[in-house]
Every structure is written in structure tokens, then in C-alpha cells.
């Protein structure tokens, strides 16, 4: 037995309707670099949140043994005190404050009752040197690039005397140079005795630096591979990440799609002024009439950004090149309203955040996308509205006492059905579904798949964005795989399998 700094034993974490972690065992040796891999939704982030106290003790089952003691973290502060620091994908720095203020934010160096700023600056310099960031500590954080901000985060962790450093996809938003720099730093910290857990999708990096690789799948530990003894290959990791039978939960379609292309995007490049970089590079794709096209990729591959930038660009990205054609005619949408009127609809992945108005009832939410069709003179024909809502309620089986039920009180699956009904009522030509089955149970999933089939058989075209690989494979006629804002390849339903898709999705340009 090695010397374990951390052992997580039989961890079970339940969410309403989902068992996110199912008896996970996870052991980290002192002083190693341990990589945690798995598909989206495999439970990696949940596991780390259990460890760091985001999900406090008693909301999960199982034991966390850290430094040979069972720990009961109630808050993040508890775990930090023991030397565990976690750095998330979304950085937790205050952009308007200086680097030194950020490093000691929350554990300020004090002289008596007041903050000792001079000592703070001196100490900051020391930690910045440790992460090899040669900048003036009084620089504002917002003036730094993402890569350097990440280094400041690590400096902050080091200033808290970190023993176990957790990095959640640290290189996801970094360019090649910054990534290499960061990986070098992690190796250096290892020499200084810091143990490191790194969650990553990029297999190349993992193979380069990992001592041990643990694979999670569907909330369970699949295996722990020791990379010190013998070289682990990408294929080996991928096999363990996906290795699952696709069961028969995907209803079959009877009708084949036609060969007419009804929607296409050409050379679509998009720049995000907020992030200060190009997020989509020359994306080309097309959809045929009556076809379901899958858009697969890992988190951060740019799928939602692609959908949003097509759908009237409400986020204010800068579209630097490219064109959209609908039924052979070039179109451009300056706001979502334009897209809807031309027949493109987008079902949001975040139904509570920007999909539905939760304080309003079912009929309100269904009719809003095409309210003008219900207007007689100036007045909304409320009887007609109720009829429409009832029709959808019956035909797609929204379970609620009446269409006057507030949407906020419905289950996730029924909320999703309301979202779909809303867009069916707008009668689009192309329907973009973003994570249509996220967070809903298997029964409701099947209903939504059936509904999708009904829609395409009636001549609609669907672009389905999904992180669930089996779902994309089971439902699509054809699929595109994206990575880092670029289409990496196109596969037909026949040639696609999990292995091939995953290989494309983890490939970097």
C-alpha cells in the first residue's frame, strides 16, 4: 500500500431523480499528479465538489479520508484550512482588484487590526515567482490574459499553504503556449511536494503528465491506470471512458430524410469580445429536410455558442465571416425575432435560466413565441390560446392539472415539453435543440425522442446538440464533431461509433 494523502470511500451523492455518484472509490497518493477523466456528466465535478465541501458533509454518503483522518467538511473554508484548494474553470478572481489583493483575498496579512499592504506585496512577489509569473503585483487582474489569471489563482492557492491542489479543466480555455507553461508548473509543484488532481478532457496532456489516471463513467469508478509502470495509450483511456452498450431506448424512424439541403452555414467565424478571442473558426455544416443532425463535442467545444450566434446572436458576439442559407436563400438575423420569423428556432439548454418564464403559466409560455398569430384586431384571442395550449398538452403529454399551471411548478421533463411545445407552435423549418434531455428522467427522455421523430417525419429539420454521446448516436442521421470551435469531422449514422466520435472530440488542432 502506498502513502495516500486522500482516500474517498464508497461515495454516493444523490440529486432529485439522479444518482450522480454511485459508490465511487478514489485514492490519491501523496506527491503524485492524478488525472480524473470521464465524459460530461460522468461525475468528476460532483466528486470534487464533495471533496471541497461545496456539498457539505451529510449530503453525501461515504467517507473522505484525508491525511489518515476522516474529514467532515461543511464549507469550502473547512477544506481550505486543511490545505485543499480547488481551481475552477470559471476563475474566482475579482477583476477590478490588483494581483496582490486577489492573492490574499480572504486571508489578508494583518498588522494589528489593519491590513499590512507592504508585507502583502512582498509576499505576493514570492508566490508569483513560484508560479513563474513575472509581473508587477499591482497590475489589475482584468488586464491579464486567461493563462496568467490561472497562474494568479495557483499563486493564491499556494499562499494558503496548499497540500492538495485540484484543477478543473485548467487548460480548457488556454492556448497551446499557456497550456504547456501550466503543465510545466504542475510538474514543478509536484517536486515541491504538492499533490495535484487534474480534471481534463485533453488526453494528450494527461498522458504527458499523469502518474495515475482514474476513469469515471456514469457516476462510478471504472478503473485506475498506473502511468508510471507502463505507458497508457489514448485508446485505452477512451475505451474505458465510453465502453457502454447502447441499449434500445431510441425509437426508430420509418421515413428517410430527403436529399434537399434546407439549411446551411458556411465559413462561420465568430469572435467573442468578452473573452477576447475567436470562439468559432470557419464552421461549415448543413442540414437536410427531415433530418436530425447531431452536434457532438465536449464541454467548451463551442456548440452552444454556434447555435446562439446563428439564432440572431443575442450575446453580441462579433461574426467575422460566414453566411447562413435557408432553403437555398441567403439570410441574416440581427436578433432572435428575425430568426424565428424566418423559421429557425432554438430550444435553450438552460430552460430555467433563459428558456421559460417560470412565474407564468403553461399557456403563456407556449403562446409567447408566436403570439401575433393569435391576435384578432388588437386583442389576443384567449380562447384560441387555451385551445392551442390544450392541444399541445394532450398531444405531447404535458402532465399538469391544466394549462393554467405555473411552469415553475412542473417537473424538469414537463418543463422541457412546454419548451418544445412553444417552438412547435412557432412552426419552424429548422429546430435547434440544445441538450434536450439534460436533467430529465428516462421515461420523459423517450417521449422527447419520439416527439423529435414525429417532427422530422413531418418535414422539420433538427440540429441536436448533446453531451450525451449515446443519445447523439442513437438519434442522429448524421453528426458533426466539434472541438475548440472547429468542426473536426462529419460522420454518418452508419460509420459513427463512440470510439470514433471521442477520438475526434478530444483531438486538438
Amino acid at each position, binding site marked *: 500500500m502506498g502513502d495516500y494523502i486522500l482516500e474517498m470511500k464508497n461515495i454516493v451523492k444523490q440529486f432529485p431523480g439522479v444518482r450522480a455518484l454511485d459508490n465511487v472509490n478514489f485514492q490519491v497518493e501523496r506527491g503524485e499528479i492524478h488525472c480524473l477523466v470521464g465524459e460530461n456528466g460522468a461525475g468528476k465535478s460532483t466528486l470534487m465538489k464533495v471533496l471541497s465541501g461545496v456539498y457539505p458533509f451529510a449530503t453525501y454518503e461515504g467517507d473522505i479520508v484525508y491525511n489518515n483522518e476522516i474529514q467532515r467538511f461543511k464549507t469550502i473554508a473547512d477544506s481550505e484550512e486543511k490545505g485543499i484548494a480547488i481551481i475552477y474553470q470559471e476563475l474566482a478572481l475579482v477583476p477590478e482588484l490588483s494581483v496582490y489583493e486577489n492573492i490574499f483575498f480572504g486571508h489578508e496579512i494583518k498588522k494589528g487590526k489593519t491590513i499590512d499592504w507592504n508585507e502583502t506585496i512582498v509576499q505576493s512577489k514570492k508566490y508569483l515567482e513560484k508560479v513563474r509569473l513575472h509581473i508587477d503585483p499591482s497590475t489589475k487582474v482584468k488586464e491579464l490574459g486567461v493563462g496568467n489569471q490561472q497562474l494568479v489563482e495557483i499563486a493564491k492557492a499556494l499562499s494558503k499553504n496548499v497540500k492538495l491542489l485540484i484543477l478543473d479543466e485548467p487548460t480548457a480555455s488556454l492556448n497551446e503556449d499557456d497550456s504547456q507553461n501550466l503543465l510545466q508548473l504542475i510538474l514543478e509543484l509536484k517536486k515541491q511536494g504538492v499533490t495535484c488532481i487534474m480534471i481534463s478532457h485533453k488526453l494528450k496532456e494527461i498522458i504527458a503528465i499523469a502518474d495515475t489516471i482514474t476513469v469515471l463513467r456514469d457516476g462510478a469508478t471504472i478503473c485506475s491506470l498506473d502511468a508510471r509502470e507502463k505507458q497508457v495509450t489514448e485508446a485505452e483511456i477512451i475505451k474505458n471512458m465510453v465502453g457502454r452498450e447502447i441499449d434500445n431506448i431510441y425509437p426508430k424512424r420509418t421515413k428517410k430524410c430527403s436529399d434537399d439541403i434546407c439549411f446551411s452555414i458556411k465559413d462561420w467565424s465568430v469572435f467573442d469580445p468578452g473573452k477576447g478571442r475567436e470562439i468559432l473558426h470557419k464552421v461549415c455544416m448543413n442540414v437536410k429536410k427531415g433530418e436530425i443532425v447531431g452536434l457532438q463535442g465536449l464541454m467548451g467545444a463551442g456548440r452552444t455558442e454556434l447555435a446562439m450566434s446563428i*439564432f440572431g446572436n*443575442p450575446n453580441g458576439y462579433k461574426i467575422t465571416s460566414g453566411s447562413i442559407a435557408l432553403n437555398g436563400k441567403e439570410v441574416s438575423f440581427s*436578433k*432572435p*425575432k428575425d*430568426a*424565428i*420569423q424566418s423559421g429557425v428556432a*432554438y430550444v*435553450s439548454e438552460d430552460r430555467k*435560466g*433563459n*428558456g*421559460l*418564464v*417560470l*412565474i*407564468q403559466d403553461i399557456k*403563456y409560455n407556449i*403562446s*409567447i*413565441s408566436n*403570439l*401575433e398569430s393569435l*391576435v384578432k384586431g*388588437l*386583442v*389576443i384571442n*384567449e*380562447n384560441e390560446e*387555451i385551445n392551442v395550449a*390544450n392541444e399541445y398538452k394532450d398531444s405531447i403529454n404535458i402532465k399538469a392539472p*391544466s394549462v*393554467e399551471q405555473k411552469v415553475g411548478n412542473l417537473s424538469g421533463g414537463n418543463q422541457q415539453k412546454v419548451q418544445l411545445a*412553444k417552438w412547435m407552435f*412557432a412552426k419552424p423549418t429548422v429546430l435547434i435543440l440544445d441538450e434536450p434531455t439534460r436533467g430529465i428522467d428516462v421515461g420523459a427522455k423517450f417521449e422527447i425522442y419520439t416527439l423529435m421523430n414525429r417532427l422530422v417525419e413531418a418535414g422539420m429539420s433538427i440540429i441536436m446538440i448533446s453531451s450525451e454521446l449515446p443519445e447523439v448516436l442513437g438519434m442522429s442521421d448524421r453528426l458533426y464533431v466539434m472541438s475548440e470551435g472547429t468542426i473536426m469531422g462529419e460522420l454518418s449514422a452508419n460509420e459513427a461509433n463512440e470510439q470514433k466520435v471521442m477520438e475526434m472530440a478530444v483531438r486538438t488542432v
Partner: protein
Amino acid sequence: MNENTEKQGLGKEIGTLLKKNVRDYMMYIALVIIMLFFTWKTNGGFIQARNITNLINQAGYVAVLAIGMTLILILKHIDLSVGYVAGFCGAVAALLMSKFNLNVWLTIVIVLALGLIIGLYQGTLVTKVGVPAFVTTLAGMFIFRGFLALSLQETGTVIVSDKVFNALSNGTIPDLPFFGGELHVLTLLIGVAAVILVVLSQIKTRRNKIKYNFKVVSMPIFITVIVFVSAIIMSIIMVLAKYQGIPWTAVIVAMVLIIYNFMLNKTCLGRYIYGIGGNDQAAELSGVDVKKVTVFAFCSMSVLAALAGILYTSRLQSATPTAGLGFEMDAIASCYIGGVAVSGGIGKVTNTIIGVLVIMSLTNGMNLMGVDISLQYVVKGIIFIIAVAFDVRTRRAAK
């Protein structure tokens, strides 16, 4: 009949109704308590026809402002400038008539158009430039206070002598000819017509709901509510009919109220306002032009502020440099007391009117009692914060 209505006992139904609508009922209960209290304290002076007419004339400009403010607050914005916009527009009205001898109707049209321009300016700043409404309208407070002072700098207070204009907030509707009796007959007729309209529309709505199998209250409760509402309308009408009839202010406020209530409940625009207030991102992704709707709300607000200014100037029969001071406080407080949600997305102009009555009854009652004006502010502030605290708590409990 619908099954739902007969399944439960009457007592139980009243219980659930109370529980579900506790917030709305509290508002009415508070209003009744306040009115009874002042009637008691003023030996019945509060409830006399003369004072009720007075109360309506006093409440008119606040009601008009509060109706516009309801839209703004539903959209999660705020407009602090309405007081001085009203003051400035009122001053312009007075100057146009006294200095330039303009026709009263032309004056009103010009002043309302001035309000529209002010609204366009503020709405554009909020939506297109992206300055938060709080800041935009705080700046508006400075600007229009200044304009008000500038416009009256030479003349000081401007007296308005136009009879038609002054009747807007002092006069009442004329009676029908040939009826020279004790009672104001036209007022009575309008009262009866209003009751009939209310009863018919309630019955129609109920039938419709039953047709679609929606939940409705049971027959006894339905009848009680209708009788109760009709009784209130008729008793107010009786009080007014014994005096000089319905004030013109009430007619103007009623028209504004009917238009806004119709707009919010029956048209696309109204739907979009609630949608944006409930979840602006969802509304935008559903194809709602959020900016356009927001600009509309600011325009409507400033036009109503101009109307409020007209009413206020008419009431005083003059424009003064202090007009507009604190109007926005009464208007915003009325909305929140009337149940507009602090988090936006919820609110009714009809309930806002109840809020206005609460605030203005307090003002009027305390004036009658001779309560010091400074103390009045304290009392109104306390009632306001209690109402909002109660609102926040009941909404959280409902979740």
C-alpha cells in the same frame, strides 16, 4: 357544473382562498382599516362626500403616475424623474396658456407630446446606450427640476385662469338636464352601468373558465364577491351623487386605468411586458423585442407624468416652482403596496389603484387630523415598508 367546485366544502374553500390570496386581501383589509380609522378620528369627516371628492382630486395625479410606474417596475426598471417631469410639464402648460394664450386643448396635446419626447430620451438612454434606469432617471430628476425652475424664473408662480383647464381637477361632470333633484342623476346612471358591466364580465369569464374545465370558485363565493364589489361601487357612487357628482379627475383616471388594464391583459404588448419582467433572456430568445418594449414603457411613463403635471397644475390653478416634489415617492410606494413584485414580472394596474388609495387616504386623513407633515412622511414610510416586507415573505412562503 365543474366537479372542482363541488368537491370541497365551502368552509374549506374559503380557507384555501384566503391562504392563496392573502396578499391581495391584506391590501383591501388595510385600506378598509385605514378608512375606518380616519372616519373615527375625524368624527365622520373623512367619509363625507366633500372629502371623498377632495380625496379623489388629490389622488388623481398620483394614480396616473402609479399606473405608468407599474409597467416600469414590472420590467425591473425604475423612474425617479416622474415628479419633476410632471412639475415641468405642468409649468409649460401654465405658461402656454397664460403667456402665449394658447387654446386649452392644443396646450394639452403639446404638453403630452413633450412628455413623449422626454420618455424617448430616457428610454433610449436605458436601452440603446445601456445606462441603468436608476442613473438615467436620477439625472432626469436634476435636469427637469432645473427646467422647472428655469421656466418659472421670470414669472414666479403662474396663475391659470382657463375655466376648462381648472375644471379637470376641480370640477365634476354635469348633470342631465330636467333633473334638478337632490341626487346627481348622471352619476347614478354611470354607477348602475358600471355595476352591470362588472357583473356581466364576471359571469362571462366564469362561463369561459368552466367551458375549459379550469378551476373556478364555488357559486356562493362567486355571488358574495359580486355583491360585495357592486355594493362598494354603489356606495361610493351614492356618496358622490349626494354631493356634486363624479369629479372629472375620476373620469380621466378611470380612462387611463381601463386602457392600461386592457393593454396589459389583452394585447401582445402587455404579454411581452410581463415576459420581460419574468425572464428577460427567455423573452428575448422567444422573439420579443426587449428594447422596443422597454422604450415604450418609458415613453408611456413620461406621457402619464405630463398628464399628472396637467392635473396638478389644474388642481392648484397655478404652476409653482415646487410642484413635483416627492411625487415619485408616492407613485412608487403605491405600486409596491398594490402588489407589484419587488423582483419584477408581477403586478396589476387595478391593484396599484388600491395602493394609491391607501397612500392618499393616509395623506388626506392625516391632513384632516392635523398631523404634522414631517410625521406624515414617517407614517407613510412605515406602512410602505410593512407592505413590502409582507409581500416578500408571502411570496417566499408560496414558493
